[in-house]
């Protein structure tokens, strides 16, 4: 039993400090897009979203709330910044879930590592 606890503590320590031993990209939290606090990287592939209505995400095209990349406001605006995680999770995962429930092929609904990668800037 003591061995079990020791292995558990050791495994947790290793995972927390160096991450998973399995191959693959390991996202690192850091200040991105001038964010006030460290955040995970995010990727968004426009090429796989060509069939979507641009306004579904780019609300600023119609409500005149700002311009440029999403992160211009979503990390720099004092009111919007605290909602970053909730808003993007709701928008991306919500849409993917709706598609899946409709029997269409949607994107990731939960797998964090499929979106939190250093690839394309949102």
């Amino acid at each position, binding site marked *: 039993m003591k061995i079990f606890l020791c292995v558990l503590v050791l495994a947790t320590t290793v995972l927390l400090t160096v991450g998973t031993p399995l191959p693959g990209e390991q*996202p690192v939290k850091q200040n991105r897009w001038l964010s006030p606090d460290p955040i995970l990287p995010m990727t968004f592939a426009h090429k796989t979203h060509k069939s979507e209505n641009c306004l579904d995400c780019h609300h600023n095209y119609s409500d005149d709330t700002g311009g440029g990349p999403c992160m211009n406001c979503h990390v720099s605006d004092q009111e919007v910044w605290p909602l970053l995680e909730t808003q993007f999770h709701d928008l991306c995962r919500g849409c993917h879930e709706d598609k899946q429930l409709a029997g269409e092929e949607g994107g990731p609904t939960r797998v964090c590592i499929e979106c939190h990668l250093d690839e394309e800037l949102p």
Partner: protein
Amino acid sequence: MQRLLLTLLSVLFVTLIATPTLGAGWLWDTGNGVGFVAFAGLLYLGRSEGSGKNQQAHQLLGFAVLGVTTTHAYWFLLFDAAVIEYIKPGAPVYMWAGILGFILLTVLIFTGLPEYRLRLHKRYAIFKYWHRGLAFATIAGAGYHIVASGFYLSISFQVVLFVMLIIAALFGDQLITRREVETRQPSAMYLVAGVLCVWLFAGIRNFSI
């Protein structure tokens, strides 16, 4: 054994009743299926007798549930490199509730072993009081972790059913028959049935897409 299977299938049923085709991929659904099996085991343990001739079986099943819970936790940490951020400061409350449940379960099992129990509690009645209290706290932490993470139990009536299931599993037979506790606690059967439940849980969500 009937009660064990009933508990496992009831938990599985509640997760599938609203959006059975909504999945997160084989990897995530398998990991979460393991988590639900762990929770079902926890519920079952909460109403099974752990003293006298059942002590060893109860302990063994406790270790089986702890093993399944550990698998659930480390599954995500190993296979999804971003999840590690969800167990660090700033993580959502439901993740802390899950971690708390995991720690409490470990404490619950280790303090129940005779060598530690006798050191901590001289009187059996006091041990039983604390053991039961810890068990309820563990179930509360794990239950909140499941409900608040809000994916598999995304509809309000699922949450209501889930809470009713917890109450029924812990107090149902006591209310109906006054006192009737499970004497056989087959940990091997729990693991075999658990594997089948995980396969069903992930399979239904991923084969149907």
